[in-house]
C-alpha cells in the first residue's frame, strides 16, 4: 500500500508510484564504446605512447567510466552500478578467454607447418640436425601407452578409495586417508618422478633386467599415476557425496545389499562427474614432462614395449625439440603440442559422450 500520509519529515518513497523509469536508448552502450575507443586511439596514437593494445585497455576503461556516468545521469545510481558491474563481469570473461583463444590460435598457426603424414608415421630415429623430416610417432605411442597404463592403475584404485572414504570410512582412518590424498595433490611432478626413479627404476627394475636398472614406459606410467590418483580420488569423492541419501535408502529399502547399492545405484548416478574428474587427471598426466624424462628417459626410436627400454612421450618430445639445435625442430615441437592438445580434447569428448549415453538408459 502506498501511504500518502504526510509526515513532517519527508522520506524518499520506498514504493514507487510508477513501474516505468527512464532508460538509456539501445544504441547508447555501443555508441559509448565506440566513442571511448576513438578517444583512446586519438590520445595514445596521437601522443605516440603505445600501440593498439594500450588503445584497447584505455578504451575499455573510458567505456566503463562513460557508461557509469551516462547511466547515472539518465537512469539513476542503482542502474549505473548494475551496468558497470555487468560490464566488469563481461570483461573478466573476455580476459579469461583471451589467453585460451591465443593458445589455440598459436598452436594451430604454428603447428600446421609440420602437420603431415611424415610427422605421424615416422620417429626421430637417425634424424640429424639437417633433416627436415622426422616425426613424433614414437612419442605418440609413448604418451598413449604411458597414460593408458596410468589410467588403468589409477581409475580403479582412485574410485575404490573414494568409495571407501564416502561409504565405509569412519573415524580416524578415513580422515587420515583424506588428509594424505590432500597432501598428494600438492606433490610436484618432479618429486613423483624421483620417487619412481628411486623405487622402481633403481630397486625393482634390476630384478627383471639381469641386475641392471632400466628405464621404461611403465615406470613413467607409475609416476603419472601418483600424480593422477589424488585428482581422481577427490573428484570422485565429491561426486559420490552429491548423490542424494534418499537414493541409497531407496535401494536399501528394497533389500539391496550395500555393495550392490553402491555399484548399481550410487556409482551410475555419479558417473558423469566421475568421468569429468578422470579426464582432468588424464589431461594433467598427458602434459607432464619431468617424470617421463626421469624414468622413461626419452629416446628417438619407436618402442612399443612399455616394460623395457627408453620411451618418449609427446610432452617430452615438445621439450626436446624446442631445445634442439636444429632449425627444423621448433616446427616439430609446435605440431607435437597441437597433437597433444587435440588428443586430450578427443579423449575428453569421447568420454563425455560415453558417460552421457549410459546415463540416458536404453
Amino acid at each position, binding site marked *: 500500500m502506498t501511504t500518502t500520509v504526510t509526515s513532517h519529515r519527508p522520506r524518499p518513497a520506498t514504493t514507487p508510484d510508477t513501474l516505468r523509469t527512464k532508460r538509456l536508448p539501445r544504441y547508447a552502450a555501443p555508441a559509448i564504446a565506440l566513442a571511448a575507443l576513438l578517444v583512446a586511439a586519438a590520445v595514445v596514437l596521437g601522443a605516440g605512447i603505445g600501440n593498439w593494445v594500450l588503445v584497447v585497455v584505455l578504451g575499455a576503461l573510458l567505456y566503463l567510466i562513460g557508461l557509469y556516468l551516462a547511466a547515472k545521469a539518465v537512469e539513476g545510481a542503482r542502474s549505473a552500478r548494475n551496468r558497470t558491474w555487468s560490464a566488469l563481469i563481461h570483461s573478466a570473461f573476455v580476459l579469461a578467454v583471451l589467453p585460451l583463444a591465443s593458445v589455440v590460435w598459436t598452436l594451430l598457426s604454428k603447428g600446421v607447418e609440420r602437420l603431415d603424414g611424415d610427422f605421424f608415421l615416422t620417429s626421430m630415429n637417425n634424424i640429424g640436425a639437417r633433416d627436415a623430416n622426422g616425426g613424433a610417432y614414437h612419442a605418440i605411442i609413448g604418451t598413449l601407452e604411458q597414460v593408458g597404463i596410468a589410467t588403468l592403475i589409477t581409475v580403479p584404485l582412485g574410485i575404490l578409495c573414494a568409495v571407501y572414504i564416502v561409504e565405509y570410512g*569412519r573415524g580416524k582412518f578415513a580422515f587420515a586417508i583424506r588428509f594424505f590424498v590432500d597432501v598428494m595433490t600438492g606433490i610436484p611432478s618432479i618429486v613423483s618422478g624421483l620417487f619412481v626413479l628411486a623405487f622402481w627404476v633403481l630397486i625393482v627394475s634390476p630384478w627383471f633386467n639381469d641386475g641392471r636398472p632400466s628405464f621404461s614406459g611403465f615406470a613413467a606410467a607409475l609416476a603419472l599415476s601418483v600424480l593422477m590418483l589424488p585428482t581422481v580420488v577427490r573428484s570422485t569423492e565429491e561426486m559420490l557425496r552429491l548423490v*542424494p541419501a*534418499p*537414493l*541409497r*535408502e*531407496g*535401494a*536399501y*529399502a*528394497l*533389500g*539391496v*545389499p550395500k555393495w*550392490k*547399492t553402491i555399484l*548399481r*545405484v550410487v556409482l*551410475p*548416478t555419479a*558417473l558423469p562427474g566421475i568421468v569429468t574428474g578422470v579426464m582432468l587427471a588424464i589431461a594433467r598426466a598427458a602434459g607432464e614432462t619431468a617424470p617421463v624424462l626421469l624414468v622413461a628417459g626419452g629416446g628417438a626410436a619407436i618402442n612399443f614395449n612399455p616394460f623395457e627400454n627408453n620411451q618418449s612421450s609427446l610432452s617430452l618430445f615438445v621439450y626436446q625439440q624446442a631445445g634442439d639445435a636444429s632449425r627444423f625442430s621448433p616446427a616439430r615441437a609446435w605440431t607435437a603440442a597441437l597433437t597433444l592438445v587435440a588428443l586430450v580434447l578427443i579423449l575428453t569428448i569421447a568420454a563425455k559422450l560415453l558417460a552421457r549415453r*549410459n*546415463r*540416458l*538408459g*536404453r
Partner: protein
Amino acid sequence: MAKRIEASNVTAYYGGFKAIENINLTVEPKTVTALIGPSGCGKSTFLRSINRMHEVLPGARVEGSLTIDDQDIYDRDVDVTAVRRMIGMVFQRPNPFPTMSIYENAVAGLRLNGVRKKSILDEAAEKALRAANLWDEVKDRLGKPGAGLSGGQQQRLCIARTIAVEPQVVLMDEPCSALDPISTLAIEDLMFQLKDKFTIIIVTHNMQQAARVSDRTAFFSIEKTGDPGRLIEYDNTQKIFSNPTQKKTEDYITGRFG
C-alpha cells in the same frame, strides 16, 4: 502373506539422543495403521526401526524387541536385507533411481537382487505398475527415464518398485506430503487396494488422511523438545477421532495443540 508386527519396549537412539521410548504396539495383518503426532515426536523413527532403516544413519541404534510373526528382526542372526525385502518402504519424497528407466525402476528390487530372466521381469513390471495404478499412464514409455514423470507419478512408481519385490508389509513415511491433492487421492485409493494383500503402516501429518485411510491410529507425542517420543494412544481410528481416551489426543486432533 501379510504379517503381524509386534513392538515391545522399542527405544531408539540417534547417538546419545533418545528419540523414542518404550513403544508397545501390535499391528494386525491386512490393515492400514496410521501414525500421527506433532513434528519430532518419533513417528518416522519408529517407522524406520520396523524395517531396520533407522540403523543406516551413523550412531543410530534400537533397543527392545520388534517381531514379525514371532521372528525378532533385531536378532543377531537376522539378515538385514531379508528384513527389508519382507518390509518395504515408501519415502516422503519420491526417489526413483535417476539412471534407470521407468521399467528398470519398477523392477529395480528384483534386478538388483539377481533376477535376470526377462519374462519374469516383464511380468513383474506390469503387475507392479498395474497395482500402483500407473500402468495405463506409462505403458507406452517404459524406456523413458523414471525421473521424467510428474511428482505423483514418481511416487506411484516408487510404490510399484516397493511392491514389485512382494513384501508383506509396506511402510509409508508421509508418502503424500510432497504431492498435490489429486495425486494424494490416487495414492489413498491405492492404499485401499493394497490392503487386501499387504499390511500397511503410514506416517502422516494430515489427520483427515489418517481418518480416511486407516483402520487403526497410533498417536505419538513428546512432553517437550529434547524428550523422547512416546506412544500416547493406540486404538481404532474411529475411536481415536470421535472419542479418544487421552486428553492429549483430543487436544491434538481438535487442533488445540501441535
